């Protein structure tokens, strides 16, 4: 009779629940930036190899997402935004999330190696380790700079895409890494200002909780000021060009203006207009990253047509 009980579990996991473990929304950014890193790199891959490379980079990112959901199930259950995730809601057991995460980590790294090269596979393995162990298990609950550290893991995909083609890491790949790395803190802290979640109850030291909201506003401005030169400097590398330079100057000016406005405001002003500026900057930051990487892609197409670059 004990066997029949397993057939009648009230919340049996569906295929979509396992997909949710892979954080598909985060994956869309990974796919896009890895694809750009792969397409702007000198040389080229066969389309099948390129498709496989992007697929397994995305799968590796998904695997680290599943490991994150396994480890963070306790805090996900406390926070409103995350309590409906598959593990805290009981649809998928923590053990299944761990098993899926480990299995997909192994598959994605080995397959990326077979499809492309050892450097790309090594970078993917390090990214998974960094996100799951260094960020999720170690530093996320220890330091209010957790967003900065988590951002490093999210910054690797274009570098891995580049390495998949070239078999090495260059200044251009490092600049694409730096672009996402510097972009992540202002993006997430703008979100943290208007998403008043109970990170404190969950035991996660978010900057808004540990250092206050005024300090968070200053941090957004500082990181945006540091981001702008990285974005503009990329224009003067072999993957940049006039189109990218115009985009980087215009978008960075817009982001700086928004960060300046956030810094000038206080909570009374923000409450009065329902965090209008903070929400606008958050939305703009998404556009900023997609447009900058899109401009790199445009430059790559123009170079292929022999009309791009400097």
């Amino acid at each position, binding site marked *: 009779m004990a066997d029949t009980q397993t*057939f009648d579990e009230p919340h*049996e996991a*569906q*295929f979509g629940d396992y997909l949710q473990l892979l954080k598909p929304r985060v994956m869309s950014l990974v796919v896009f930036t890895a694809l750009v890193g792969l397409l702007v790199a000198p040389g080229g891959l*066969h389309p*099948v190899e390129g498709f496989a490379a992007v697929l397994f980079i995305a799968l590796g990112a998904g695997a680290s997402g599943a490991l994150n959901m396994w480890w963070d199930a306790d805090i996900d259950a406390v926070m409103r935004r995350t309590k409906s995730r598959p593990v805290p809601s009981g649809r998928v057991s923590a053990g299944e999330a761990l098993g899926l995460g480990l299995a997909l980590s192994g598959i994605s790294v080995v397959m990326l190696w*077979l499809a492309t090269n050892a450097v790309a596979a090594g970078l993917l393995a390090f990214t998974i380790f960094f996100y799951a162990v260094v960020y999720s298990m170690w530093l996320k609950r220890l330091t209010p700079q957790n967003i900065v550290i988590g951002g490093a893991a999210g910054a690797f995909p274009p570098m891995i895409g580049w390495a998949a083609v070239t078999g090495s890491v260059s200044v251009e790949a490092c600049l694409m890494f730096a672009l996402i790395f510097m972009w992540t803190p202002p993006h997430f802290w703008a979100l943290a200002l208007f998403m008043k979640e109970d990170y404190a109850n969950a035991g996660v030291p978010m900057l808004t909780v540990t250092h206050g909201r005024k300090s968070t506003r200053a941090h957004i401005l500082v990181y945006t000021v540091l981001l702008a030169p990285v974005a503009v400097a990329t224009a003067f590398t072999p993957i940049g060009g006039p189109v990218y330079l115009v985009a980087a100057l215009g978008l960075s000016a817009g982001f700086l203006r928004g960060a300046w406005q956030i810094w000038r405001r206080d909570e009374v002003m923000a409450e009065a207009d329902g965090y209008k500026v903070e929400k606008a900057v958050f939305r703009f930051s998404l556009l900023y990253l997609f447009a900058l990487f899109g401009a790199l892609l445009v430059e790559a197409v123009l170079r292929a047509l022999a009309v791009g670059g400097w």
Partner: protein
Amino acid sequence: MAFKPEHEMHRRRFSRNLGVGVVLLGFVALVFALTVVKVTRGDPMAGYDHQVNPELAPAEASQ
């Protein structure tokens, strides 16, 4: 003995099984396509297969 060929569980798990099946088939197709691409290009496969093949030797070694 009453024997029900399709348990209710099979219907409930159909979407999950279908998803896993599609993923596995896709994986097989991708590995096959990768194999075709790499074998067609043939770089790593061209080696000393049972007999010495002088034209494959690096330029420095052959001088």
